[in-house]
């Protein structure tokens, strides 16, 4: 790919932006890639155009509002057939925080195929450039008639020293060993990015056939294409099971949209009293509650609520 680029230095690849009703975060950051030398798209052999019919790459921002839809689709149709469509930020992919509104008609792939997602809220300019570089390679391959087996180009790690000192808010990471299934993360997530389901439960037909009636564990799924990287789940997580990583290398092909998630499973263990399934108390929670748990607490933690009540007040209170 690199060699081909050198052989044909000629025409810059032209970028055209379509705002489908965004909060302007992604748009302002895209403006930075036209105005600030360090992040200028020219370094990728690209330039912005104001004419949709010249567009090689469409950069779509926003959740696709009802009012913006027709204009967005008109601009999309005006761009040449070989165009590569990029969803910038999570809004076009999932609606982000704006999903489930009467005024939002997205996600955009309901109306048009998206080749590449660049998640972020908004993506930092480095992530925008990495995404645009992938889109450019895809466009070059496509205009030669090959569709695209391509590897994500190796990306430079952020060089600026303070950003490493105070890491940026990137992809979320889940540690099931610390999770106590309180579901506060889902409660505070504005984007509905976090989903809990019970593995082996009715809903999970595949697993049910393997183990009818006995749930194996609780599964958390966090969809990176809906997450807005606010970190509120991690802020309210009592045990630190959810944490913010500095990973912003998140651009991926449209076909991967729904596979791009974080998943973890918290297994049920049998109650040491009656054997009914319970979620074990994570050491992180015990530490938060008791600092140094006594042997008695260590024993109680293996009991289900009913057995605990039996132990401490001699009967189960209903």
């Amino acid at each position: 790919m690199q060699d081909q680029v050198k052989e044909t230095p000629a025409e810059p690849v032209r970028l055209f932006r379509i705002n489908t009703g965004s909060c302007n975060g992604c748009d302002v950051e895209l403006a930075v890639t036209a105005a600030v030398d360090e992040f200028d798209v020219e370094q990728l052999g690209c330039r912005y155009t104001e004419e949709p019919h010249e567009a090689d790459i469409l950069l779509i921002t926003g959740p696709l509002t009802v009012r913006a839809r027709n204009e967005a689709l008109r601009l999309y149709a005006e761009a040449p057939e070989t165009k590569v469509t990029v969803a910038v930020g999570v809004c076009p992919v999932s609606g982000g925080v704006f999903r489930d509104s009467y005024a939002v008609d997205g996600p955009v792939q309901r109306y048009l195929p998206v080749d590449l997602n660049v998640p972020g809220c908004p993506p930092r300019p480095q992530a925008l450039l990495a995404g645009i570089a992938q889109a450019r390679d895809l466009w070059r391959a496509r205009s030669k008639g090959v569709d695209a087996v391509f590897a994500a180009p190796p990306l430079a790690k952020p060089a600026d020293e303070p950003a490493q000192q105070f890491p940026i808010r990137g992809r979320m990471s889940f540690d099931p060993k610390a999770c106590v299934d309180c579901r506060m993360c889902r409660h505070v997530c504005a984007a509905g990015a976090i989903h809990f389901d019970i593995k082996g439960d009715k809903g999970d037909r595949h697993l049910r056939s393997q183990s009818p009636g006995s749930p194996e564990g609780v599964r958390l799924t966090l969809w990176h294409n809906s997450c807005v990287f606010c970190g509120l789940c991690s802020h309210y997580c009592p045990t630190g099971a959810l944490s913010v990583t500095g990973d912003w290398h998140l651009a991926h092909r449209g076909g991967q949209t729904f596979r791009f998630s974080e998943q973890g499973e918290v297994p049920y263990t049998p109650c040491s009293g009656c054997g009914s399934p319970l979620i074990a108390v994570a050491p992180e929670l015990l530490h938060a509650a008791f600092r140094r748990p006594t042997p008695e607490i260590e024993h109680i933690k293996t009991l289900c609520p009913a057995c605990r009540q039996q132990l401490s007040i001699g009967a189960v209170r209903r």
Partner: protein
Amino acid sequence: MTSVIELGPHQLALEEPMYFRVKLEGDRVAGLDVQPGQVHRGMEHLVMRRNLYQNITLLERLCSLCSNSHPSTFCSAIEEVAGVAIPERAEYLRAVADEIKRIASHLFCCAVQANLIGQTALFRRAMEVREIMQRSKEAIYGNRMDLAANCIGGVRYDLTPDAAMYLARQMEAMKAPLDELYLQFQNNPAIMARTAGVGVLPRLEAIECAVVGPVARACGIDYDVRKKSPYGAYDRLEFSTSLQQAGDVRARNLVRLAEARQSVSLIEQCLAGLVPGPLCADLLPEIPAGEAVAKSEAPRGELVYYLRTDGTDFPLRLKWRVPSYMNWDALKVMLHGEPVANIPLIVNSIDPCIACTDR
């Protein structure tokens, strides 16, 4: 000769979709019809379907240029209902976040206008200076636009001594460039030729349109929420309201750049006054039934929040008035009799926030 033209975001050089139907007499503007709604995401509906915690993040995405003002004002309203007093350290940290956003927002507005009058070098310079703020935001908050600084009862970020020193160095680095930009907008003849006496909003009309923020202060209206009804740490901070009298495009930019310079000083004062202590009053305070109004000075002017709760986690009603709502009504006055070529500049001179207004 009367004609009607339609202008969209590409003609107006706006980052956001906004459409105007302009009535012309010859080549002069005679009437204006703003056609909003492109960015309407049904926010008032959405906030009622999200609980109070989710709304902190949702409201931060109401608009990314004033993204800190929304959650901080919303949290103030909740704290008012809950009777929670936030710790003093959190008050200072909220002010730091607000002022950082103000500087970046004002610089973006001035940069776009420089571009519109063909001052490409100045445009790129203003954007470069703004990058100092963007880098600071990313280093301290982890994101260049949405800071995620607020939570109910306080803030959820801290300035460690290292981070405070880093921020102080960045503020020092802002001073000379901000002064230089102010002088450019004040004295550069090429810029004056395009901005002085352009898009004038006379003081009386400004009062009639109830404009706020830099648009009002450029007409000599001494109104700044931080001064008139101080909230948070602002009653302990030294600053004066930036005022201009001319009411034109130039005056609005001078107000903005003077304010940006003042914000640098406010951040320095906050860093100096940052008392040790907790960041948040109570991680999960009980929110009883009640109602409250909170207001703050967002980069574009006075931002008012009304909140009514019923004791559950979901707001019963949440309503806000954003500064651009009044300011863009005043465009009719500013644009009247102006040549078509000046429309994009004048529209951008009120720093319209369409995401806030359409919501």
